[in-house]
């Protein structure tokens, strides 16, 4: 919720950290211990570090000498014109979606959710499933991660001298 409220991008990243830890706790409560650890390792250890690096690399510092006469007027006019309608529409869409989902969940009668659940470790089942039934998606996920990381490195790398001269 606080990701929505705060205006500072770095604070939003830290509140996202809190939310991801909360989701990991919910996974533990839903008897998914392996997924909780994977959530903490992947999201908190990988994605959130990337996000914080991105925030720090793209955060524009507030220049004190940049306040010429046109800059504040532009921001104020943009806030007055664009923010009013866009804000209302976004909150309406999200709130309507939540109300619809809430009424759906309140009216639905899941017979599955009334059954008792057992508590057992899911690591062995997940390992067996990964090596037998889901072996093709597992390998595809590996290739996808490799391609994504190579592509991200290529995209984020600064352009070399020769290619810069070639494009110019």
């Amino acid at each position, binding site marked *: 919720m606080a990701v*929505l409220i705060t205006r500072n991008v770095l604070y939003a990243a830290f509140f996202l950290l809190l939310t991801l830890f909360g989701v990991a706790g919910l996974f533990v409560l839903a008897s998914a211990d392996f997924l909780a650890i994977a959530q903490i390792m992947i999201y908190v250890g990988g994605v959130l570090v990337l996000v914080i690096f991105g925030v720090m690399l793209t955060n524009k510092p507030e220049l004190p000498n940049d306040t010429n006469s046109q800059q504040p007027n532009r921001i104020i006019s943009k806030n007055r014109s*664009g923010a009013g309608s866009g804000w209302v529409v976004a909150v309406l869409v999200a709130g309507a979606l939540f109300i619809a989902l809430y009424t759906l969940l309140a009216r639905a009668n899941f017979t599955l959710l009334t059954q008792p*659940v057992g508590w057992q470790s899911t690591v062995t*089942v997940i390992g067996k499933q990964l090596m037998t039934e889901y072996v093709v998606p597992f390998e595809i996920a590996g290739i*996808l991660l490799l391609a994504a990381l190579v592509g991200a490195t290529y*995209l984020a790398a*600064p352009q070399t001298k020769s290619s810069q001269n070639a494009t110019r």
Partner: protein
Amino acid sequence: MQPVDSHLFLLVGAALFSIGLAVVLLKRHAIVVLMGIELMLNAVNINLVAFSQYDPDRLQGQMLSLFVMVVAAAESAIALAIVLQVYRHFRTAQLDELNELNY
């Protein structure tokens, strides 16, 4: 251990999805929009895991949620690389100010 009522998982998932959608629609910084997408993927994962605990023999929901996590990691890496390049090119990451494809 006292089992948690599974409707609560679905409600939390719905709330998290709505908040993520509001973040995506409302915020102007590109990285915060990415955070909203991560929130929505997490909401989907909560639903999958909540239903998967009634399937302890095959755990299909947890497997799908594992692959969703992998795809989310790849997506965030690519998207952050693109945001970095956009920031280098336009000197801003505010989505409202990016109104040209090429200059």
